[in-house]
């Protein structure tokens, strides 16, 4: 194999694929990136057995061929090469090394045979549709914070992506950790109907969040009950799905909450952030005292003091005292795009519904704390 490639192009592609590779591996080949030179240019591929990222980039291929080299090391090397340089990759004569040349720098990297490299992409993915990149970004960005990190309920360790029938039909993403829930939907793209509900794992979600930044207008999605593939321009990400049943989340979304509170989102978030400064312990509650037209936020920490702040709000129901985990409130507030957030409350022991007053399609459910 002999190939010459622009350093900037190579760096960008490597930065995409090397993230998938775990820092420590028990199987040596998983630490490597597969480099394949062919007619269409250079192809880079990395995997952790659950997730596979493949990217193609233009290159001047003199001799086709393929090999694997340590992913983090080649990324670090290319990163440190001078800007604007051309990188030449040559398989060594003994096929045990890969020579990397750029300017006056010479590197020789140990390789592992590409035949050992696992292939994840095999298998049929019968359901196919494409969504606007901005839509996909919205689906994952706004739900990602609610994914559970607790591993025994593994089926909550991802985003539940599924089609909702009706008029109009929707594509919906849901995540919950048992304390709060986020639900975001977009108009159903063509081809979505009939797709199985799938749970996209947390690591895949965070990779997609990074990859959509460099993607084009549209993202193509293919899936089967076991796998999902995102084609974002030159990058293709294939991931296994979480094999489990997502709980019937519809039951916990309250329908009859009659007390409506509308707050200026920025003021509200800042106030919550300010008063929660005095709480030290993790998970300390902030108390919301509601009266007509007025919201009082308060935190009491017997060790250090207390804080209160008053906000003018739109509220006309009966007075109510309710507590929330301040971090959860801030997480949700960060997802609200418009200026006003609407909270629908029932009582201090029941789920509260939070929504963007301007933008439909996203809703959040938060369970109160006892205060």
């Amino acid at each position, binding site marked *: 194999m002999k190939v010459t490639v622009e350093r900037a192009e190579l760096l960008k592609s490597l930065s995409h694929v090397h993230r998938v590779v775990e820092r420590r591996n028990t199987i040596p080949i998983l630490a490597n990136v597969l480099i394949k030179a062919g007619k269409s240019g250079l192809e880079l591929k990395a995997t952790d057995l659950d997730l596979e990222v493949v990217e193609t980039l233009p290159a001047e291929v003199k001799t086709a061929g393929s090999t694997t080299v340590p992913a983090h090391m080649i990324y670090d090397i290319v990163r440190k090469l001078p800007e604007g340089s051309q990188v030449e990759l040559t398989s060594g004569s003994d096929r045990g090394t890969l020579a990397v040349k750029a300017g006056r720098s010479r590197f020789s990297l140990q390789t592992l045979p590409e035949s050992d490299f696992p292939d994840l992409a095999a298998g049929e993915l019968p359901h196919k549709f494409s969504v606007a990149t901005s839509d996909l970004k919205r689906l994952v960005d706004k739900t990602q914070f609610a994914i*559970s*990190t*607790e*591993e*025994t*309920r593994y089926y909550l360790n991802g985003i539940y992506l599924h089609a909702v029938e009706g008029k109009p039909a929707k594509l919906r993403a849901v995540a*919950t*950790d*048992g*304390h*709060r*829930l986020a639900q975001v939907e977009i108009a159903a793209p063509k081809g979505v109907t009939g797709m199985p509900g799938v749970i996209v794992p947390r690591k895949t979600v965070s990779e997609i969040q990074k990859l959509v930044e460099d993607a084009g207008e549209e993202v193509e999605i293919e899936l089967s009950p076991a796998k999902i593939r995102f084609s974002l321009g030159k990058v293709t990400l294939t991931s296994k799905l979480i094999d489990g049943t997502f*709980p019937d989340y519809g039951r*916990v979304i309250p329908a009859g909450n009659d007390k409506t509170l509308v707050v200026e989102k920025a003021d509200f978030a800042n106030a919550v952030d300010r008063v929660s400064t005095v709480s030290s*312990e*993790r*998970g*300390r*509650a902030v108390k919301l005292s509601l009266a007509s037209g007025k919201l009082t936020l308060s935190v009491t920490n*017997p*060790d250090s003091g207390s804080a209160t702040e008053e906000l003018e709000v739109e509220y006309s129901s009966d007075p109510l005292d309710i507590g929330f*985990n301040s971090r959860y409130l801030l997480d949700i507030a960060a997802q609200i795009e418009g200026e006003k957030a609407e909270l629908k409350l029932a009582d201090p*022991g029941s*789920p509260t519904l939070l929504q963007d007053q301007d933008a439909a399609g996203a809703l959040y*459910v938060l*369970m*109160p*704390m*006892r*205060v």
Partner: protein
Amino acid sequence: MIFPAPFNPFFLLEFCARLAQVFHMPVRQLSEAVINRIAAGEVVERPASVVKELVENALDAGARRIEVVLSGGGQRLIRVTDDGAGMTPQDLQLAVDRHATSKLPDDDLNSVSTLGFRGEALPSIGAVAKLSIITRTKDAANASEIVVDGGRKGAVRPAALGAGTRIEVRDLFYATPARLKFMKSERAETATAVEAVKRLALARPDVTFVIAAEDRPPITYAAQSDSAEGRLARMADVLGADLKENAIAVEGEREGVKLSGIAGLPTFSRANSLSQYFFVNGRPVRDKVLLGAVRGAYADLLHGDRHPVVALFVTLDPREVDVNVHPAKTEVRFRDSGLIRALIVRSLQDALGTGARRASTTGATRLVSFARPHRGARGHVSWRGSAASLRSGFAEAAQEAFAHFEPSADARPSFALAAPDLLDKPLGAARAQVHETYIVAQTRDGLVIVDQHAAHERLVYEKLKAAMERDGVARQILLVPAVVELGPDNAAALVERAADLAKMGLVIEAFGSGAVLVREQPALLGDTDIEALIRDLAEHMAEWDAALPLERRLLAVASSMSCHGSVRAGRRLKPDEMNALLREMETTDYAGQCNHGRPTYIELKLSDIEKLFGRR
């Protein structure tokens, strides 16, 4: 059923016939001898249980001095001699009969105040061994003797003995050979028998005990006054002299239940729970409620596999406790076990709270014993070796010049002059910080070395704990209540304690039979594995009747928070900071050990230091 050796075709027929015979046997009353042998299986399990029964009898007879002689691990001979009330010949005749006793005067099983009462011991022993009793009341003209041999009772004959009773048990279990097979080695049987006497000796400091066995020197526990001091003296006799310095007196009373005894310092722990002695109304017991309470009290003071040394005496109205649970009477049932548990936990915590500011003295003792044999160890440096080291030493010497470069920050240990008034404090006046990790303080009669990180971690932890107790645990309501399948018994036990769990931030309710529904969890635990927590809790609850796993998890979070929030090793402390730390340790409960049970400081007495230098 015995099978005929050569197989013949009629065998099956014959077999069926015999079976029919067995099934058609009429019901009949078992003979007295067989009944006694069956009962003996429960009461007389091994030589130690015989010793226990006999010594208890002696104590019930008001003996002031009890002598126990063992031979062949107690299997060949057990002889218990006492100077108690003795028996008349008529009583003696009756005593070896089943369910005959002098100890339940008004047949009231609800208020048992003697150690024995079932009237089973003597006939049971007589059923499986050769039993001889010689006894004489104070005003009888002569002693009487009766012999029971494998259940066959002899006649009462005159014999010679001073006042009291002497009971000899020979060839134990010769009548039930099956039991013999389960005997352990002679040494092991002797050890458990001696242990049984020790337990009783702890309970009765006012009685002299003499124990003699073949393979060990005789032990004599001299009678002590029946007071707290006497009891402590007896404990030191039985449990070892270093106990005195490493234990704290425990005292407590609640609703007529009295608790007294001693608790070992957490740093004076053992690898098993054998050194835990419990007495209920003077009766040695091993009871789950009591063991569990002690575990709970020491929960965050000891590493999980260490056990404290305790001797606790519970005194309560005999009607509040049922000792008639098991023939061997090692288990009891309290009418209000929650009260007993709360009393023990609270009293232990009170005592340890102030007492555990101390660390055990064994650390310093160990240091002294380690350090001593070092004398003269350097005497053998050969001249050859020294020549070689000279050569390599040259290169090192060149390097040494660099070693003296001053670090950019002032890294010299900080010194402080001892303020005289601080010298009288328990932890003394801070004199220096060494290796940026240890504080060296001077007291009037010694030296204290403090591990600053361990000590401060404990202080922060205690503050967090106090805050948690004061403000309660914040509860996060669950969006999707979690259902945990447990099995009916565990689930019911857990639901019964729902109120206590709610105080710790866990709200559960019954969910059908055999499952619980978790509605709220401690917010502190964040995104946690509820199911594992509940299972752990249920299992622990079934065994110990305490919610330790939840408490432990909460405290583990507090513990890791305190670790992050405390002064680390490597941080330089100014003299004022060091003194402030020492003063705070003196006033903080449990400051003697870190969250993992290691000591936070060790104290070297001047005398110990003098020993190190061979001045003493």
